[in-house]
């Protein structure tokens, strides 16, 4: 069989679909254009799928032999068409039901689960292409003098294919671990294997060697070994990363899923896949970079994992002097806030855990009735994935023009009467600005301590933040600790505001 000729109209259609995907991301530059962008995405996908369905109709060959003739007819294989449509239908049903039912607080898990599906799909496509390369137009059939004809996959395609399968497998197993951690099926704390760096390096080198060998020989042994080792390294890479580093992990896996799609796009010579892969790959990479910058940590140190481990031990051994702090009640908080001119609410992961976003918005509404200006300040790494807090606040009907990013609002704390910190801790810690020995030194933080009064909602005084560092804000004269479950405390404040 010769190389499948690419019809220019088909190639053009895939290009259009790639452009639609660019517009889909472009739309996200503002909430007002985002819905339209999402529709472009759907159109792009519809074009790509339709084009593939139309140009790759499954056929069966019939050999009709008459008395004096023999002819080969090919006709549409209806059962195969049905199977494909059924497969799409099953996927659509599962996808739509999941998307409708999922709670907004569970969005990080859902995204991780979706990443794992992209990864697995990439592996399946690569394996299918490896088993039937002629169908993908990436092989020449060689007929030797003796023996069966066999397919020789093009050298370039061998590289693309092995890259696609490796990245796909890493995305899959890494995302499964990320999902289990985010979903609480697996402890969030980093799990550290002894000599894990050496193991990872060894597995990484082994993958590179067998991939190289596959390129030379096209041997199934090398192929399957790369698949297995890539699954293993995805697992090994994510297991030691925990808790607050999850936003980086989720972004990174997002990026990998893109690169996997791009690699398969190279294999299939499909511009829609390549454009999408490049978009998604850079998107995930940029998000990882933003998250790392927001924690002042290098990407390498996040990937190396184990953050928060040594610090936990340190805070126990450090035996801090008991410093005085003030405890406040819901009534105190309600009174202080109702008298304020401006209140800035600083939400964190704790708010998501307590599902306090709705009652928080009620509190904000009550405060507005008292003539208080309410704003929200979001730290980039608040929550477990980029933009997590924004979605939760949007879910609770908080208008997005009341929600501000760190750099846009940080200067306002000095002119603010009350900073209301709920479920956040490390992102408000002034030690990041002053204490060079602190593990979070250099991380950009919200300057809540500059507000006239800080109200800090926290479960108890015992627990420290993820980084395992004490927060000086707790012990300031102008801080009042509101020790309770976040949701209960805000509910009580709402009652007291009546």
């Amino acid at each position, binding site marked *: 069989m010769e190389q499948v000729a690419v019809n220019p109209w088909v190639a053009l259609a895939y290009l259009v679909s790639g452009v639609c995907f660019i517009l889909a*991301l472009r739309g996200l530059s503002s909430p007002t254009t985002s819905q339209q962008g999402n529709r472009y995405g759907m159109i792009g996908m519809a074009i790509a799928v339709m084009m593939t369905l139309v140009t790759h109709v499954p056929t069966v060959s019939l050999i009709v032999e008459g008395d004096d003739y023999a002819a080969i007819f090919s006709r549409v294989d209806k059962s195969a068409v049905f199977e494909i449509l059924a*497969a799409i239908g099953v996927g659509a049903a599962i996808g739509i039901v999941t998307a409708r039912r999922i709670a907004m607080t569970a969005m990080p898990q859902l995204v991780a689960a979706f990443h794992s*599906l992209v990864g697995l799909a990439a592996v399946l496509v690569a394996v299918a292409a490896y088993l039937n390369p002629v169908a993908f137009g990436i092989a020449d059939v060689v007929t030797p003098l003796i023996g069966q004809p066999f397919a020789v996959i093009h050298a370039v395609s061998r590289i693309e294919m092995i890259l696609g399968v490796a990245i796909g497998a890493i995305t899959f197993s890494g995302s499964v671990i990320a999902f289990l951690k985010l979903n609480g099926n697996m402890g969030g704390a980093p799990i550290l294997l002894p000599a894990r760096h050496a193991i990872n390096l060894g597995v990484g080198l082994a993958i590179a060697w067998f991939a190289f060998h596959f390129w030379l020989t096209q041997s199934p042994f090398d192929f399957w070994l790369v698949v297995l080792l890539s699954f293993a390294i995805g697992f090994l890479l994510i297991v030691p990363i925990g808790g607050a580093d999850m936003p980086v992990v989720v972004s990174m896996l997002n990026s990998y899923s893109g690169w*996997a799609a791009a690699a398969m796009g190279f294999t299939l010579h499909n511009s829609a896949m390549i454009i999408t892969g490049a978009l998604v790959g850079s998107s995930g990479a940029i998000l990882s970079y933003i998250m790392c910058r927001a924690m002042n940590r290098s990407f390498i140190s996040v990937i190396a994992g184990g953050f928060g481990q040594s610090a936990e031990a340190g805070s126990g051994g450090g035996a801090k002097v008991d410093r005085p702090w003030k405890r406040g009640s819901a009534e105190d908080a309600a009174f202080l806030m109702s008298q304020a001119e401006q209140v800035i609410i600083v939400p964190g992961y704790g708010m998501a855990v307590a599902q306090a976003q709705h009652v928080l918005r009620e509190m904000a509404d009550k405060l507005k*009735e008292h003539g208080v200006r309410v704003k929200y300040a979001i730290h980039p790494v608040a929550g477990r994935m980029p933009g997590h807090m924004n979605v939760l606040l949007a879910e609770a009907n908080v208008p997005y023009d009341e929600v501000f990013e760190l750099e846009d609002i940080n200067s306002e704390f000095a002119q603010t009467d009350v900073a209301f910190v709920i479920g956040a801790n490390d992102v408000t810690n002034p030690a990041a600005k002053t204490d060079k020995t602190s593990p979070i030194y250099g991380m950009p933080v919200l300057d809540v301590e500059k507000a006239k009064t800080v109200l800090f909602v926290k479960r108890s005084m015992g627990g420290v933040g993820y980084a395992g560092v004490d927060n000086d804000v707790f012990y300031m004269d102008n801080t009042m600790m509101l020790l309770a479950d976040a949701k209960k405390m805000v509910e009580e404040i709402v009652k007291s505001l009546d």
Partner: protein
Amino acid sequence: MDFVAILSIFVLACFVGYYVVWSVTPALHTPLMAVTNAISSVIIVGALIASAAAGSTSSKWLGLLGVVLASINIFGGFAVTSRMLAMYKKKERPAVAKH
């Protein structure tokens, strides 16, 4: 298409991605992840080719499984994105406080 032509598309698309993604407002980073998830499932194209091809039964079934997985992602990803985006609202009335 030859390799260099494909590589050119890829490299240019990386640059486009870089500038487009930096212009995404941080408030929409979660929908960004959801929608990138959906569009990266364009890998369904490969799965469709595999499942439509004659010649290898195992390849066909792997393709069909790939179609199911990618479809979950496509429909789920776009649906959850539009559900999220529908929640982002501006203030209904500019002047809320009357007291």
